[in-house]
């Protein structure tokens, strides 16, 4: 609980603080009007710095402030991302130095070990030397490398030509942290982080697994994007996801529960995996084989959701709706429309969407399975809610057990909630978790984490930041260790498993399928984020209609609007975004998941059925698509494509080569590359197509390099 002071020790006087002037009271009831400007540590506890009306800064011991003021300080603690970043760097270097020393000792011990055969000794030597090589910090990123990395990691795509050059040409010491700030506020970040959450939470365009048309969940997508945009605290977002009630348009957060419609036990397993990094799925059928989770524990946790009803409308409302449906259908039939509407578009289907809601009923329906075999319960016995670790929930204080669960789950005292979040975010930024696998955090972290001290610090930092994800990411992106060139070698599985990779730099990653696709979008369009698929408000308005006064003609119109809206949710009616026959909008604005034969699917986009099952593995169909597919052969080199426009508008072959390199790899070509590329660009002022064919070849070639696919 003292974590607030941990950051206090780091905090300094902030010149940029936007604090308000307020009335402060100390324990002796003395008052002063001032604004909070900083906190400093001292031998006798933290000292709060207040700037009075006259501009003078007063030092005041934290412990002498009134309770109200103390909590104000905790909430409004000015934080300095640079200082926190330095602290992380210090912990990383400390660990690397220590590991380096230990490994050298180990090496000399191995070399002296007479029990080892020569071959064994050489093998061990090689292994240790490899590990030692991964304790050396890599080079600092150049501006070219930095701009590309930071755009891919924050904006989710490569920078455009203009974005890359304006950063590279810019002067000033602060330009890196300024760009980080700018990107964190951009729509591009919302899109990128939404892709991440879509993979984590299995956000897909059509919910329900019961076949049929499925329920379009664009409203839920918009809600998630709104949470990212407004940067709401992660704890609050999570609490709302697990406690939301209503229909998708009344309360879009119900999308989380509706994702597992009819499968509440799976929903619980997923909640544990995603928000607590704890795998308890197996306890659904039997005691956990490796950890202390009993089958009974699983059902007690499930019982928090025992009263939840999904897909069920109250009978009265159902009756009324059915009556209206058949009346309206009758009226539509009388209109004798020439266009045939399939059953998929009938009013019944639309009205059916009212059933897809989350409600809290009166009866707890959680029962032990029919084949329950342990002696602490009988088969089919009703189970009451209880937690099996962390805080003990006092249910009598709650009218709704789900809310009790939400409080327990997101409490700062929950031993896994914060660790899970920081571990997942560390992986989001550095490519690998402090603990792997991220979905299964062990009970004891020391010795399992790559850097235990650092992980503990990250946990307290997140609590201090009150689960402000953007602020936390800002700190990570500002670290020196982040701003280093990726390691030339990847750590072995054994190293990761034993917690022996200590992050001299981020690991080298292939772009995710979304990063690749969105990069192609940024190469072909002028403004990659200009298309937004937003439907929430229109959906709310449409569904608030009064069916009892709707006539046949209005119903036909309603049906049309409903369909158009659903299509917009999946980017389907953005025909003007087509370049060379492909719809070039960001992955976050398209159907989730994309179709089976889409680029996104081929490159490993999650099918959104499982948590984080997107992958970055290679395959032959991918490579064939890069070499012979429509995208790299027609779309990119289409006259409407932005990179072609850029190339065409530049005089001088050398400059054109430069522009194409900067557009795709965000760097200038080397002299050799420039010469080589220039040869392939044939200038013919009379025949523009010759010139364009030259650009097309160069673009194709750069897209097919490993440098394009990987984030160095």
């Amino acid at each position, binding site marked *: 609980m003292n974590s607030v002071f941990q950051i206090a020790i780091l905090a300094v006087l902030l010149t940029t603080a936007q604090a308000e002037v307020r009335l402060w009271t100390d324990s002796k009831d003395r008052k002063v009007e001032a604004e909070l400007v900083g906190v400093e540590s001292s031998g006798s506890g933290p000292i709060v710095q207040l700037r009075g009306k006259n501009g003078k800064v007063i030092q005041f011991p934290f412990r002498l402030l009134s309770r109200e003021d103390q909590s104000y300080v905790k909430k409004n603690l000015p934080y300095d991302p640079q200082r926190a970043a330095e602290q992380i760097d210090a912990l990383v270097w400390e660990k690397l130095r220590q590991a380096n020393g230990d490994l050298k000792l180990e090496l000399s011990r191995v070399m002296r070990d007479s029990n080892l055969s020569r071959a064994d000794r050489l093998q061990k030597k090689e292994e240790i030397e490899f590990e030692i090589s991964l304790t050396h910090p890599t080079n600092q990123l150049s501006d070219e490398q930095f701009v590309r990395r930071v755009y891919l990691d924050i904006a989710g795509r490569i920078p455009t030509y203009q974005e890359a050059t304006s950063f590279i040409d810019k002067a000033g010491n602060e330009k890196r942290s300024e760009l980080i700030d700018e990107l964190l506020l951009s729509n591009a970040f919302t899109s990128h982080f939404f892709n991440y959450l879509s993979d984590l939470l299995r956000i897909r365009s059509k919910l329900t697994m019961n076949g049929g048309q499925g329920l379009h969940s664009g409203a839920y997508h918009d809600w998630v994007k709104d949470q990212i945009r407004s940067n709401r605290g992660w704890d609050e977002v999570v609490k709302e996801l697990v406690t939301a009630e209503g229909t998708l348009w009344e309360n879009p957060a119900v999308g989380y529960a509706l994702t597992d419609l009819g499968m509440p036990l*799976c929903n619980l397993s997923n909640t544990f995996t995603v928000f607590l990094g704890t795998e308890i799925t197996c306890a659904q059928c039997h005691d956990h084989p490796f950890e202390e*989770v009993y089958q009974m524990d699983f059902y007690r946790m499930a019982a928090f959701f025992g009263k939840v009803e999904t897909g069920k409308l109250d009978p009265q409302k159902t009756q009324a709706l059915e009556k209206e449906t058949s009346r309206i259908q009758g009226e539509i039939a009388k209109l004798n429309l020439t266009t045939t509407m399939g059953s998929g578009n009938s009013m019944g289907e639309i009205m059916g969407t009212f059933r897809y809601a989350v409600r809290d009923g009166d009866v707890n329906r959680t029962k032990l399975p029919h084949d329950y075999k342990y002696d602490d319960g009988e088969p089919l016995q009703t189970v009451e809610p209880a937690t099996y670790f962390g805080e003990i929930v006092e249910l009598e204080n709650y009218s709704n057990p789900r809310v009790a669960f939400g409080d327990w789950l997101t409490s700062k005292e929950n031993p896994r909630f914060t660790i899970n979040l920081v571990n997942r975010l560390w992986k989001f930024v550095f490519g690998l978790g402090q603990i792997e696998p991220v979905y299964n955090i062990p009970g004891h972290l020391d010795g399992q984490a790559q850097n235990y001290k650092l992980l503990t610090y990250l946990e307290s930092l997140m609590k201090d930041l009150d689960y402000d994800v953007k602020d936390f990411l800002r700190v990570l992106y500002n670290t020196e260790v982040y701003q280093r060139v990726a390691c030339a070698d990847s750590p072995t599985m054994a190293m990761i498993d034993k917690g022996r990779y200590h992050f001299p730099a981020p690991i080298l990653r292939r772009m995710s399928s979304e990063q690749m696709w969105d990069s192609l979008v940024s190469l072909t369009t002028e403004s990659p984020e200009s298309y937004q698929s937003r439907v929430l408000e229109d959906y709310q308005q449409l569904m608030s209609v009064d069916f009892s006064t709707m006539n046949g003609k209005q119903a036909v119109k309603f049906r049309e609007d409903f369909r158009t809206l659903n299509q917009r949710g999946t980017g389907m009616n953005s025909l003007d975004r087509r370049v060379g026959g492909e719809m070039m909008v960001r992955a976050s604005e398209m159907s989730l998941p994309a179709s089976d034969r889409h680029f996104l699917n081929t490159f490993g986009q999650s099918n959104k059925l499982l948590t984080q099952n997107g992958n970055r593995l290679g395959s032959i169909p991918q490579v*064939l698509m890069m070499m012979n597919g429509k995208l790299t052969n*027609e779309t990119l080199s289409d006259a409407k494509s932005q990179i072609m426009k850029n190339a065409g508008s530049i005089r001088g072959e050398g400059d054109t080569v430069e522009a194409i390199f900067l557009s795709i790899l965000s760097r200038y070509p080397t002299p050799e590359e420039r010469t080589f590329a220039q040869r392939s660009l044939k200038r013919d002022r009379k025949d523009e197509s010759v010139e364009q064919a030259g650009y097309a*070849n160069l673009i194709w070639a750069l897209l*097919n*390099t*490993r440098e394009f696919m990987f984030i160095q």
Partner: protein
Amino acid sequence: MSVGMKRWSDLARRDFSRIAAQSLLGVSLVPGASQVLAQSSAGRAKKVIYFFLSGGMSHIDSFDPKPGSKVQGPTEAIGTPSGFQISSNFESLASLSDHFSVIRTMTSQTGDHQGGRYYVRTGYKRLASIVHPDLAAWKKKLAPLKTDSTLPFWVSIREGSFPGDGFMGPNFAPVPLGNPNSGLPNSAPMVDDGIFEERLEMVNTFNEMFTRRFRTKEVRAYNEFYEHALELMSSDDLEAFDLSKMEKSRRQKFGSGQGADAAALAVRLNENDVEYVHVNWGGWDNHSGIFEANAAQNFRGLSQAVAATLEEVNLDETMVVLATEFGRSPRINENRGRDHHPLAFSAMVAGAGIKGGQAYGKTDKNGYAVDDDPVSPEDLNATLATAMGIPLDKIVFSPSGRPFLVAGHTEDLKTRQIIPVGKPVKDLLI
């Protein structure tokens, strides 16, 4: 809330997984399973062609006619040389009955299309916490064909890639083909050979600096994928995907339409050592008009294509399977159609490892429920797996460490043994 730590795992997870893995790997063979493995059919099916009839094919109008019953409708029953009856829709297949066996007692509880298909193809019911692999992925994992072919091991025609590799990962995924007539997607350059060469030369030059610096296995893997893809593009094997290269007289046997083309392509791929081919054939969701001409034509077209497959493929090493997600209700509804009916449905198996000429199991007089010898999706997979030589008790762990078996599993709570659920139908195996 009051703060009080309750019990919390004291043991490190990895120690546990090691112990558990040892004890799991040490499990003795389950008696039933080892017996089946001793069966002579085991492993005969080196390759597979699998017709999946998506939508839910009516059993009464295909393999389980009920002549004389009010549920039968206008479709007639005809005899076969093996003595059992099938629907007159399947005339082309009738004369080949010695080569195949019909399973009339498929039964499941899943009445939705996706869920039903998932269950039949993976041997597991659908969950939101794992995707189970298709039987094809299990074959690749545990009983792969040994071949020098550069072609993919699994091609799925006119079907998405779901559930596909499930938790096994992309190396176990199918290559999906949309149109059987357009070859392997993206397998030919879109520019002249000369330009393509020039482009490749540029790639090599631009790659130099990066690949010299970064030696990770992921980067090297991509270098290899490029090499393999270029190899494949210039390989004669690729012709396997080119249906126009098939002899005209031979191809005509399959009939016309995309389903027939898919079947013909399946045979061609099979001959070129593509180990597993799925042909997805739709149009069975006959909620209305099941006795109308176009519906009947779908049955007849399928029958012709499957008959041609049985005749053209080497049945000594290839197993041919025909399955669907569920049957259709005996009751004929007001739209002259039949609705979803998972309680009883039919499948067909033929070729390597399979004893032909039988109609296995019996449904009641109206084809509503199973009377004798029910066959669950797990049992079907156990039967097919046995013919392919996949051990039923070989545990494969998902990346999250959960154990799975090819034909479903359960756990003996006393012994902690993982036990197969599916039992192979011995009568169907040689």
